[in-house]
């Protein structure tokens, strides 16, 4: 019941279209049932000499039309009128069928578009943490193939079920009044055919699955071979690979052929029953007609009705088994939509940020009992550069992610210009804080579009300037298509350092008063790293900057260095202060000395007497 509710919920706004669509198929089916009746009357009472005999609730209408058109005497002289009625009926049935097709397409496609947009939007607003943990492949599958299952259900299956029901109802109401015995004969095998269809499609599910799975294995072998072509060649394993692929290829061929063979059994058995059903009507009907119990027209009408009924009945087996899939898909999509999203607009918005930041006893944990940050306190003045140093897992990234509220801290407070950030809305906070992530993601569009992504109406100058500051401009104009070069899946592959620099350009283009670099210069060489930092400093506005780095040159130039260990701020100070204290920073400083000593040893063979102290000044 809950699942049906979910589906109905998705259908909101398009329900009336569905009602129209199903009504249209009802009319179309009704007309289809009238058709044989016209034939029957024409054959029996216009061409033949039987008196007009129509049974059922529509009989009076039939009779008055018959009389209106002039009765047998006139109609027999102008048979074209009967033909015209047949054609007109088909035309109107066609019109209903057209509207059924159109309306169900409009309804199902707009529902699907709605779900698609909702899913996409929802995913965008799910919290940062959700995306850190998310399994991309699974999510994409839900957004695409599960949605497609629902679309098929809405566009085809739902209406098909309606058609089958109308068929049954009309069949009974048209056939029964004509002749009860013939009706019973006509429907005698229908339950069997239906049950056989349902049972078969339930049974054959396994064969479908096996075929799908072996196809999956086939493409895995293929994919691994193609991506690992170097390994294959280097080990000269072509023959081995060919045999391996052949094995999977055979398996898929045989599994699928087995499935097709099962389907061949199904269709031939099902067709056998169906033809038997028709045969029973034809032969028994002929017998009764010869005996004068039923008329020729009645026999013809029954033969048509039986033919009409069988196809939808057989389709039902498949439709019903497929409906189970739609239920599962709806649940899988609902699961995503049930995840709580973050509200970007809650809280006051910032106008102009100065850039004074204070952490006051800040604590944070993802899981109860596993604190990531413990009582971190420090203050950053406007325009200062704060370098953060610490071993892997010490909480550096978490610390800076708290500032744009990608996570919300649990203890203490963080203030910007004296205002607690929890009272500031996330949207305006994030617009003012530029953050370059550790592994930046570039969108598959041109470099120019990528850099201009965050700025509304970014013009060429803005983009070039940002690229120049990020020391990537010269690299870009060296590409064949310059700034129009596409990146990502279908474009060029950028190196790690180039990606980082594009990401930096993209972040600084807005001239935010606060900037955060999460180890985002690690793949850039030391000299370029220094050049970028220098160009950033030269900009007019004073920007409060946080840099996670372990490069001594970067750390030494900072106004303040924070050393984190196990979530605690163990040291803070300037380069000169920290080299005097025992601790991580001093140990890193010591590496420099050891390198110089080693190099000195190398040199001693040839040049003795060089002043080692002088070299120490090269940082």
């Amino acid at each position, binding site marked *: 019941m809950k699942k049906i509710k979910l589906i109905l919920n998705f259908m909101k706004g398009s329900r009336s279209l569905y009602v129209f669509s199903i009504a249209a198929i009802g009319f179309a089916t009704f007309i289809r049932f009238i058709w044989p009746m016209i034939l029957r009357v024409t054959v029996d009472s216009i061409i033949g000499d039987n008196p007009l005999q129509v049974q059922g609730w529509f009989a009076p209408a039939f009779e008055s039309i018959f009389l209106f058109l002039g009765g047998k005497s006139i109609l027999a002289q102008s048979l074209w009128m009967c033909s015209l009625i047949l054609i007109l009926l088909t035309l109107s049935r066609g019109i209903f069928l057209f509207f059924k097709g159109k309306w169900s397409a409009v309804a199902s496609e707009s529902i699907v578009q709605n779900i698609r947009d909702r899913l996409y939007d929802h995913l965008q607003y799910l919290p940062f943490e959700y995306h850190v943990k998310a399994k991309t492949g699974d999510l994409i599958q839900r957004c695409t193939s599960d949605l497609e299952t629902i679309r098929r259900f809405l566009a085809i299956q739902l209406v098909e079920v309606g058609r089958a029901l109308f068929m049954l109802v009309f069949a009974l109401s048209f056939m029964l009044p004509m002749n009860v015995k013939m009706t019973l004969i006509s429907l005698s095998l229908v339950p069997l055919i239906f049950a056989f269809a349902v049972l078969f499609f339930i049974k054959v599910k396994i064969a479908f699955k096996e075929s799908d799975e072996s196809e999956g294995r086939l493409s895995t072998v293929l994919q691994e071979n193609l991506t690992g072509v170097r390994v294959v060649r280097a080990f000269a394993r072509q023959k081995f690979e060919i045999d391996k692929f052949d094995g999977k290829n055979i398996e898929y061929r045989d599994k699928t052929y087995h499935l097709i063979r099962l389907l061949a059994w199904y269709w031939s058995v099902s067709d056998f029953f169906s033809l038997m059903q028709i045969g029973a009507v034809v032969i028994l009907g002929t017998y009764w007609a*010869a005996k004068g119990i039923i008329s020729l027209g009645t026999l013809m009408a029954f033969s048509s009705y039986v033919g009409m009924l069988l196809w939808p009945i057989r389709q039902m087996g498949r439709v019903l088994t497929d409906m189970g899939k739609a239920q599962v898909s709806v649940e899988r999509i609902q699961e995503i939509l049930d995840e709580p999203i973050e509200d970007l607009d809650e809280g006051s918005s910032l106008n102009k940020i100065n850039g004074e930041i204070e952490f006051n006893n800040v604590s944070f944990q993802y899981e109860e009992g596993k604190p990531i940050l413990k009582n971190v306190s420090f203050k950053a003045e406007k325009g200062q550069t704060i370098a953060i140093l610490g071993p892997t897992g010490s909480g550096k990234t978490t610390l800076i992610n708290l500032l744009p509220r990608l996570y919300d801290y649990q203890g203490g407070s963080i203030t910007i210009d004296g205002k607690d950030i929890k009272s500031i809305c996330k949207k305006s906070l994030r617009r003012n804080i530029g953050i370059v992530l550790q592994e930046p993601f570039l969108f598959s569009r041109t470099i120019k579009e990528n850099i201009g992504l965050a700025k509304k109406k970014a013009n060429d100058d803005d983009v070039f300037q940002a690229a120049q500051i990020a020391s990537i401009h010269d690299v870009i104009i060296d590409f064949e298509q310059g700034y129009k070069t596409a990146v990502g899946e279908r474009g060029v592959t950028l190196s790690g350092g180039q990606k980082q620099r594009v990401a930096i350009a993209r972040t600084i283009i807005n001239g935010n008063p606060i900037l955060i670099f999460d180890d985002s210069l690690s793949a850039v060489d030391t000299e370029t790293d220094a050049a970028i930092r220098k160009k950033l400093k030269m900009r007019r506005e004073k920007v409060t900057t946080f840099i996670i780095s372990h490069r001594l040159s970067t750390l030494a130039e900072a106004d303040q260095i924070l050393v984190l260990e196990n979530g605690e701020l163990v040291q803070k100070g300037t380069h000169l202060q920290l080299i005097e204290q025992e601790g*991580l920073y001093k140990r890193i400083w010591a590496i*420099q000395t050891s390198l110089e000593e080693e190099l000195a040893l190398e040199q001693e063979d040839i040049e003795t007497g060089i002043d080692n102290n002088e070299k120490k000044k090269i940082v």
Partner: protein
Amino acid sequence: MDIFKEQEYNKRFDISLWKKLLQFCKPYKSRLVILGFFMIGLAGVDVIFPLMSKYAVDNFVIPGKTDGIVLFGLIYFLLIAVQAANIFFFIDIAGKIEMYLTYDIRKKGFQHLQELSFNYYDKTPVGWLMARMTSDSQRLGSFISWGIVDLVWGFSLMILISITMLILNWKLALVTLTVVPVLVVLSLYFQKKILKAYRKVRKTNSKITGSFNEGIAGAKTTKTLVREAENLREFQVNTSEMYRSSVKAAIFSSLYLPVVLTLGSIGTGLALWFGGEGVMMQAISYGTLVAFISYTVQFFEPLRELARVFAELQNSQASAERIFSMIDEKPQITDNSEVTQKYGDILRSKEENWPKINGNISFEEVTFGYKDGEKVLKNFNLDIKAGETIALVGETGSGKSTIVNLACRFYEPTKGKIKIDGEDYRSRSMLWLHSNLGYVLQTPHLFSGSIKENIAYGRLDATDKEIIVAAKLVNAHEFITKMEKGYDSEVGEGGAKLSTGQKQLISFARAILADPRIFILDEATSSVDTETEQLIQEAIHTVLENRTSFIIAHRLSTIRSADRILVIQKGKITEQGDHHELLKQKGYYYRLYTNQFMEEQEEMLLNA
């Protein structure tokens, strides 16, 4: 955003292409003929049923007699049985042809892919190849088998119906058949439109999948840029396009049915009008009228199928074109026939004729470029003694990888020679060289399967014991035995269940099991935890011992232990010598070393 644009094929019927396809059908010639007969049989019985009705009307119903109705019933039953058998056999045979044809195309394609050179892989995305090998070959297989089903059945049914009608009453037949030409033209028109519309839908759909992919993978970045609303707006452009094209396609197909049904009913109407008058004038029997009405209704189905097949023809031709463009591609690097004759090819290697390899490698005046006109190396010379370890350092694009690629004969010099043990390597077989090669890639590539199978990739006939010895040599044994199923643990697709460091160690074990004379190591740049790093370093030293080796080196410890370090800049060796010698030169290597030293030490300190 025209990144997603796909190639359009709009060519006319291409006979040479279909001739090539015929080659694939050859093994199934007799089956295809039998299939054709079944389809004709199917159509034949389809035509007989209305004749049975005619017989029943004219011989039982109208005269009011029931003599012989039992025999009639029996014959009817027999026809049903024949038809059911026909249906079973045609599906079975067509299914078999479909699957076997697809199998053959894939097999041929895969074999060819194993022979194509790296230059082809460089310019062809894996996704493109995957699509050719999966969906295109499937489409071709099913088009040939089920296309023949529909074609033969449709044509013979239409012809048989026409003939039967003409025999029954040629005047009435001519009158009712007047609608057929219009039906044919309209069906072709609509089916083409419908197909085109659905192709558009599929294209838009893959765009949407791409957007979802980006939306999810880039969600974190989107958050930091506060671009949620803009992203949705852009996404909605795609979904609106999807809505429009889907509805358009649905409207086309919903329009087709009414048009054809109405036209068909004109045929039925004509049959009723003229047939009915004939009956009243007693020129035509009731049974004939009944049969005519059935036939006019029956005519529509085969027509639709035929139109569909013709519409699909273009699509299938495009699939065939793409598959053949792959299969007909000539491998850039091949052994000449003399070499193949002596040493064998990838399917039948003549290992007994292979000479023993020592491992001396020399580049003599080698010039090379990946593209025409480009010169990555120019008159390059290098002499390596057997057993020497060479470390290559230099910036990305300097030519380090090219040297390795040429030494492995993944590419061949455009000018000059590369000799192994004094012989131009082109005079020996590629397989011989590669069988003596050990290769560890920067990003290790494993295959789905167990750890054991992955190590044994180095030597297929290795015993369990040898596999364990290899794993122990590279320090992989310990972590493997700690896993639940030990050596039988599955590594997952592409080795996804293992960490990068573990994959690295397994690829070392794999290489060492091959016991190669020449070893290539493209050292990983990404850092792993210090402990694994230590294990990998030890593994490298074990692997390199007594082998000629090239290392594209990033780690100082690896570089320092090399016999010779080559600094490559713009395709030239600018510095050369061992660690101590190069430091003294105070050039590129000196700068590299000092920078790298800091980075590595800091990293060690921070990752401890």
